[in-house]
């Protein structure tokens, strides 16, 4: 299926180049593939509505990535508020499904605690600096550094001292 407008050629090329990797990265961040795909879809819709301006930017892909991260961030905060409110409203079920059960990624990453996994993905896959990651999660930068440190320890086979000593 194609869009009729000639301006859509560049847009389609960007979509086909960036969509999958962005969804994959945000799936690791959010722990939910469908939520990630929706966020990236919305970001591309937004880009298309303003394509005249977005296409003229130095990095249209960067614009889309930023828009998609913002959407996931809003979802994340909404979910956090809901999770905070739910125990006061209804008792938790005996076995509640976690987001990790929807996460179709390698076991090492899937087994990371939710916040740690989000930090690692934002930092390593989406190249977000520590300050941005902290804003995303609504935590202090020191917390992000701590989560990164623990994430590295779990995902790396290397003792950080090995390389320094070598």
């Amino acid at each position, binding site marked *: 299926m194609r869009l009729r407008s000639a301006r859509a050629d560049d847009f389609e090329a960007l979509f086909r180049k960036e969509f999958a990797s962005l969804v994959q990265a945000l*799936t690791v961040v959010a722990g939910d593939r469908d939520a990630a795909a929706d966020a990236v879809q919305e970001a591309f819709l937004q880009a*298309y509505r303003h394509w005249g301006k977005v296409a003229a930017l130095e990095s249209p892909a960067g614009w889309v990535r930023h828009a998609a991260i913002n959407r996931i961030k809003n979802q994340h905060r909404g979910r956090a508020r809901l999770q905070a409110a739910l125990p006061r409203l209804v008792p938790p079920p005996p076995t509640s499904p976690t987001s990790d059960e929807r996460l179709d990624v*390698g076991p090492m990453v899937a087994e990371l605690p939710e916040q740690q996994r989000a930090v690692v993905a934002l*930092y390593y896959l989406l190249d977000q600096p520590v300050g941005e990651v902290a804003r995303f999660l609504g935590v202090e930068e020191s917390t992000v550094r701590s989560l990164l440190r623990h994430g590295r320890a779990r995902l790396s086979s*290397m003792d950080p001292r090995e390389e320094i000593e070598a």
Partner: protein
Amino acid sequence: MSADVESLDPRDEEVRSVVAAAAAAVPVDVDAEWSRLVARLAAERRRAMAARGAAAAAVVLLLTVGRPVVDVAGTALVRFVTDVFTTTIDGAADAVDDRVAAWSGRDKAHGTIDDDNEYWVEVRKVHEQLNRAVGWSRWDADELDGAAERLEAIASKDPELEDDVRRAADLIRQAQSRARREPASRAHSIIEGIESELRRRG
């Protein structure tokens, strides 16, 4: 890579490759997602067109009910629609009659013209061509055939308006050569200004 002190950790490359491999395992059907996006855009377009169609139908209905003699040149029509929408249905016909009556006295761009003044008649003909070319929801460059030449022929007859007349002619040529509506719309505004000036002079 993030420009951050954390990126200096010796385990970075290994961790990055582990996370990238995990992400790559997430299945994504790009073709299906593209189809979904196109369908959403098409739905948006349909909604926008339906809204425009409803607005057009409302205008046609109001024009039919009021049976006004309307010069559908841009601003006058918008004023007409705005005013009529603010009245009740019962009072719509009265409002139309009042508005049409008011136009001839108040709207200097669309009042009567001096048929004996050749300059004025030519400007008016171009105005009518522009109305047909760029009227409401319309764009037909062919309607502008000869308009630029008509303006060039009279331009020098009024030194005070000459620049505006030549500018309008130039915009009409641009609209035709580039097949773009926007220069024609700007020419239309200039021509309305010229007619207002002619009426101001009497």
